Structure formats: structure tokens, C-alpha cells
């Protein structure tokens, strides 16, 4: 019972922090923290599935989040017919050829038994196919990117409702996780870490450089929203009257309304995922997962297929990260491949999981909110602190100016210290696993 009270108190404290932000700074920034906190909570829930319940070390969260963002563009943007006419079929043919090549080489690998023959035949086959692949793909890519590069220069998406992108983002992340899991699971945990780190860098490199798909660093802006636009709200008489009855002017009311609508959607997703995760954790399946985590040899002796169980949960956790990535891109209403940084999208999520309590779903959600709150607020607090400490100095002194300039970097330092202190003194996190 006391554990439950502690959990409630901790959650209440974090929400109090957000409410205080609302009163001191503005409700807009409080709602921003809440929305991103909800998304962070979904991400850390996904990582907790992998690390907390199954003990799998995934340091490629950024890649799965990025795939979710890509899904948003591919699903919700309007297609660009000129670009499709210019090179669409060619690109599709090239990609199809690539998939066929890989399938065929896997098939050949399984067919040929002689190790040396197998190696050389596959090597030669892959090298030749690569040139064919490039010769099919490149003219298509060039043609597509030449179509009105300032505004489009890419194929666009399918023009479907943006909410559909959330499950699709999850599916795409799951597909990538399947490929990584097939190769790197079953090896030592460090290898999985390096492999996921690598794949996430590659996914982001693809987002940045394949302009025909994502417009690269030119960004895809204006992704359709699942919630009404502020302008439309301000034009609606009903809404303006309703806002006036709360004593708010239409502009503020509309921005708040949009953010609250997002919070409702994200909160719904989070609730569904928490419910599912809690059920999974307490089911026989969850017990088996924890048994595997705690003693692989014993679990194997009991007849559990460790590799395929690991693969299963690795895919599930990555899919959750993909959903979160799609949600985040929807909230931003644009895909900015240049903004994906591993410290922010991979390692910060790790801090959330560890601080909240690995193995506990509620803990990782709490960690998501708290760490995100700190990530946002450390900068103003740090600025104030540095300003206070260096106040006796000459206002133009270079040391003081440099310190005030680099305050933004304080958040990395703080997060690192926070993680180290938690690991040292509360290794089981704020809400420990039961």
C-alpha cells in the first residue's frame, strides 16, 4: 500500500512541476512539456520493454524514432504526380530489385553448403547486382529530385489521414528491428548495442540524404494535422464565444486548445500502451521474459526458446518507439532529418528508463516526464545560476560571457550526473520493479 502511495505522490509531484511551469512561465510552454513528456513516456515504455523486462540493450532508439517520422511523411503528405511520372516507377523497380537480390542471396546462402563457394558466389552476385541496382535507381532519383526542387523534389506520400501513420510507423520500426534482431540477437549484449547504434546512424543518414523520399535537409513541412488549425478555430464564432466565457482571447485559447487536443490523443495512446504493457508484464508471458532475463541458462533448460523470445520483445519495443516517433513528427508537423541527434533521441531515453526504474512500466513513464521536464528547464535554471554566480564579475568579462554562452550545454552535464547518481545510489530507479 505504501508503495502505491509513493507512486501517486511521485506522479503528483511531476505534474505539480508542470503546473508550476504553467503559472510561472506560460501555459503554452507547460503544455509543450506535457505533450513532449507524453511522447517521451511512450519511448521510454518501449525501451523498458526491451531493457527492463528482457534485458536487451538497444542503443539505436533514434533510428526507430526516425522511421516513425518517415512513416508520417509517407502516409500523410499529398503525392506529387509530376515526380511520380518523372521517376516513380523506376525508383520502385530499383527498390524491388534490391529486395529480390537480398532474398535471392539469402536463399543461395542456404542452398550452397560449401563455405568457400558460397562466399565467393554470393560476393560476386552482390557486387554485380549493386551496379544493376544503381543503374536502375539513379536516373529515377535524378528525375524526381529535378521536379520543382524548391517546393517538392520528392515523391510525396499517399495523402492518407495522419493518424494512420502512427501504427504504420510502429510497423516500419518493427520491420527494421526484425532485421537487426535476426542478425545481432543471440550474440553478446555489447554486440547488440553496437549493431543498434550503427543501424540508427544509417537510418538517419538515409533520411538526410535520400531527397527523393524525405527531401533530406530541406525538410518536409506542413504535415497535415489530426487536430483543427488555430486559424479555423479563431474564425469559428462558437469557439470564440466559448473562449470568451473562460475569459481568454481567441488567439491564446486556440493555441491552448490545439495543444490540449494533442495531449488528449497522446494520452490515449499512452494509456492503451501502459494497459497492454502492464497486462503483458503480469501475464505468464511477462513472467517467462523476466525469467529469461534473470537466468538465461535456467530458462533454456526449462525449454524456452530464448532467441525467438528476445526477437519478439525486441520487435515489440522498437515498434513502440516507432509509434512515438510518428507522434512526435505529427506534433512538430514537419520532418527535420537534421534534428535527429543520438544524445537527445537515444541516450536521453536511456536516462529516463534508468531514472524511472528499469523493469517497471510506471517508473519509466515517470522517468519520461521528469527527465523531459529537467531537459527543458535546466537551461533557464542554469542561466539564472550562472548569472548569479558571475554577477560580481565585470558584465563584459570574457569568462562571464563565455559561461553564459555555453549554458545550453549544461543539460548534458546535468543529465549525465543525474544518471550516474541514480545508478550509484538508487540503481532500481524511482519506482522500482516489484
Amino acid at each position, binding site marked *: 500500500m505504501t508503495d502505491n502511495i509513493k507512486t501517486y505522490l511521485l506522479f503528483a509531484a511531476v505534474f505539480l512541476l508542470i503546473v508550476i511551469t504553467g503559472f510561472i512561465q506560460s501555459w503554452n510552454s507547460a503544455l509543450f512539456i506535457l505533450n513532449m513528456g507524453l511522447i517521451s513516456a511512450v519511448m521510454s515504455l518501449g525501451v523498458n520493454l526491451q531493457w527492463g523486462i528482457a534485458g536487451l540493450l538497444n542503443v539505436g532508439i533514434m533510428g526507430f524514432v526516425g522511421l516513425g517520422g518517415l512513416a508520417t511523411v509517407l502516409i500523410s503528405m499529398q503525392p506529387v504526380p509530376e515526380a511520380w511520372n518523372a521517376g516513380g516507377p523506376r525508383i520502385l523497380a530499383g527498390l524491388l530489385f534490391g529486395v529480390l537480390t537480398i532474398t535471392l542471396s539469402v536463399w543461395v546462402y542456404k542452398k550452397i553448403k560449401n563455405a568457400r563457394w558460397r562466399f565467393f558466389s554470393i560476393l560476386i552476385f552482390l557486387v554485380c547486382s549493386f551496379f544493376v541496382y544503381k543503374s536502375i535507381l539513379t536516373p529515377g532519383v535524378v528525375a524526381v529530385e529535378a521536379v520543382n526542387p524548391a517546393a517538392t523534389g520528392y515523391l510525396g506520400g499517399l495523402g492518407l489521414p495522419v493518424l494512420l501513420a502512427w501504427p504504420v510507423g510502429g510497423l516500419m520500426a518493427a520491420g527494421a528491428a526484425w532485421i537487426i534482431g535476426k542478425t545481432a540477437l543471440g550474440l553478446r549484449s*555489447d554486440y547488440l548495442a553496437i*549493431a543498434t547504434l550503427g543501424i540508427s546512424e544509417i537510418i538517419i543518414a538515409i533520411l538526410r540524404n535520400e531527397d527523393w523520399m524525405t527531401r533530406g535537409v530541406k525538410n518536409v513541412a506542413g504535415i497535415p494535422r489530426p487536430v483543427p488549425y488555430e486559424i479555423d478555430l479563431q474564425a469559428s464564432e462558437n469557439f470564440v464565444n466559448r473562449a470568451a466565457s473562460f475569459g481568454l482571447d481567441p488567439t491564446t485559447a486556440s493555441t491552448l486548445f490545439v495543444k490540449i487536443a494533442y495531449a488528449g490523443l497522446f494520452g490515449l495512446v499512452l494509456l492503451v500502451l501502459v494497459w497492454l504493457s502492464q497486462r503483458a508484464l503480469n501475464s505468464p508471458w511477462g513472467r517467462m521474459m523476466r525469467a529469461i532475463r534473470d537466468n538465461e541458462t535456467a530458462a533454456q533448460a526449462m525449454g524456452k526458446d530464448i532467441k525467438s523470445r528476445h526477437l519478439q520483445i525486441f520487435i515489440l519495443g522498437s515498434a513502440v518507439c516507432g509509434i512515438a516517433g510518428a507522434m512526435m513528427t505529427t506534433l512538430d508537423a514537419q520532418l527535420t532529418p537534421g534534428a535527429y541527434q543520438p544524445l537527445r533521441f537515444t541516450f536521453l531515453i536511456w536516462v529516463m528508463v534508468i531514472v524511472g526504474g528499469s523493469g517497471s512500466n510506471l517508473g519509466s513513464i515517470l522517468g519520461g516526464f521528469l527527465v523531459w521536464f529537467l531537459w527543458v528547464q535546466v537551461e533557464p535554471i542554469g542561466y539564472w545560476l550562472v548569472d548569479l554566480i558571475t554577477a560580481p564579475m565585470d558584465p563584459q568579462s570574457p569568462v562571464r560571457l563565455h559561461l553564459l554562452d555555453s549554458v545550453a550545454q549544461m543539460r548534458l552535464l546535468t543529465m*549525465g550526473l543525474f544518471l550516474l547518481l541514480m545508478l550509484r545510489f538508487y540503481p532500481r530507479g524511482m519506482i522500482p520493479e516489484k
Partner: protein
Amino acid sequence: MEFLHAVIVLSNFVIIPAITYGSQLALGALGVTLVYGILRFSNFAHGDTMAFGTMVAILFTWWFQSIGVSIAPLPTALLALPIAIVLTALLLLGTDRVVLRFYRKQKSAPVILLIVSLGIMFVYNGLVRFIIGVGDQRFSDGSRFIISARDFKKLTGLDEGLAIKTTQVITVITAVMVVALLFWFLNRTRTGKSMRAFSDNEDLALLSGINPERVVLYTWLIVAALATIAGTLYGLDKSFKPFVYFQLLLPIFAAAIVGGLGNPLGAIAGGFLIAFSEVFITYAWKKVLTYTLPEQFAPSGLMQLLATEYKFAVSFAILLVVLLFKPTGLFKGKSL
């Protein structure tokens, strides 16, 4: 003549840069592999350790430049290197004392230490960005070229130039010296032997009276030196940017794993393998092929296999192939 031109172009754009980059990666991978072999965890903070060491070297280079100390034609950074190594060693030993020793005493699982190293990575990263900022820093001075492309053309009368940068020669010479010194230390000295014994079998080493804290101390000293030298050489050759150093983690780990984690010789081989593959695959082969192939086959495109931005994909692909077919690496590494 055509063939000679092809060879010169190839050396200028592929072989010399790859050897330089390979030496830098090899030094980095040696640091990772030593920590893995002796302290038994994958140190994700290694890239940021390199960044910290380089940052100290840069700060002292600037100071030396401002008071007019120089060892021209060599870059001033070489003079700052010993100081940077000492300060980096102090940082690493301090980190070990405050953070890592606790987990070592507890005999924590390697995975926990890996996560701890993530925290250390955050702190170092923040520290470096806090002190020197996130921007690009160039700190190479002294003469830029041993032989510039124009001089080479004048000297030989050929159409293609071969430029050798001072930093490239310094990198290779320093790397050879450091590696020779390291192997001499590991194979010939008492401390080096005790380190290898500790890496082979911790319990047996403890039984034969090896002091583990001493082994750990020497490991960190060597790792500090390797990381600082690797980072400074990379910065001299290209430029210093904290984020780039963080990203070096991937090729460095790939090199260490490909060679076999915990095996110093493997780390060197892995470093060169990764560097050569990266440069080979991202190089535009048009010029070389134009010189070597008969005229009617001369390529029209750039003949670049992958855009430079995908160089991570190369280290990653090699890593995957090795993991799939030879999980302990090309040279036999250890597996925990």
C-alpha cells in the same frame, strides 16, 4: 604513363588518406580494446575521452601560440600533447575512483558498466561542449605540406600531383611509435605482462599476487595516452568538432570488434580494414578508371559506390558480416 598517373591519383586520394585514417582508428580501437580486455566492459565514453584530450591539447596550443612558443615546421599541438595526456589521465583516474571503482568492487555485470559509461559519456560530452563550444576548431599550424601537388608535378613532370600533408606523415610516424611502445610494454615489462595475465584470467592473476588496482591504474594511463594521441592526430588532420568525435565511436568499435575485442593486434588490423573500406567505397573512381581502362570503356559517371554520408554504413556492414560469420573477430578476441 597512363598507369603511373592512375597509381599517383590512387595514392593521393585513396591510399595515403586511408593509411592516415586507419592509424587514427587503430589508436582509438586500441583504447577500446584495452578497456574491454582488462576492465571488461564496452566503453561508450571513449569517443568523448578523445574529444576531451584533444580539447586540452587545443587549449594549450592556443596558449603556446599566444606566448610565441613554436616548434615549426611541426605543429605546436605536438608540444601540447604531453600536457593533454597528463590532464586526460587525471580525468580518467578521477572518473575511475569516483564512479567505476564502486561497480568493480560489486562485480557488476558488463552491461551495467556499459550503462555507467553512457553516463560518463554524457558528462564528458557536456564538459567539452561547455568549455570549448560545439563549433569547428582548426588548430593545425606549421608547414602544411611535405610536398605539395604543384611541387610534385614540377619535380617529376607528370600531369597528376601527389600531395603529402605534414599531418599525414606525423600521424603515421606517431602511430607506429606508439604501437611499438605499447607492444614493447605489454610483452616485455613486468607491468605489461601482469596486465595481459589479468586480461586472460582474472582469478589466476589475482591468485599469483597481481595487484588489480595497479593494473587498472596503468590501463587508464595507457588509455588516456592512446585516446589523446588518436584524437589530436585526427583533429590535426581534419578538424576538431565534439559531435564528430562522438560519431567516431562507431568506426572505432567496428574496428575493435572486427579485429577481435580484447586483442590489440586485431584492433590495429581492424582499424586499417575499416579505414580502407570506407575510403574505397566512398571514393569517386572516375579519374583512376579513365587512366587505366581503354578509351572506349571510360566511365561517364563519377563511379562512386556510395555517397560519403554513408560511410557509417560501410563500417556497419563489415561489422555485421564479421558478427554473422566470425563472432569473435578476425583475430581471436574474447567473449564475455
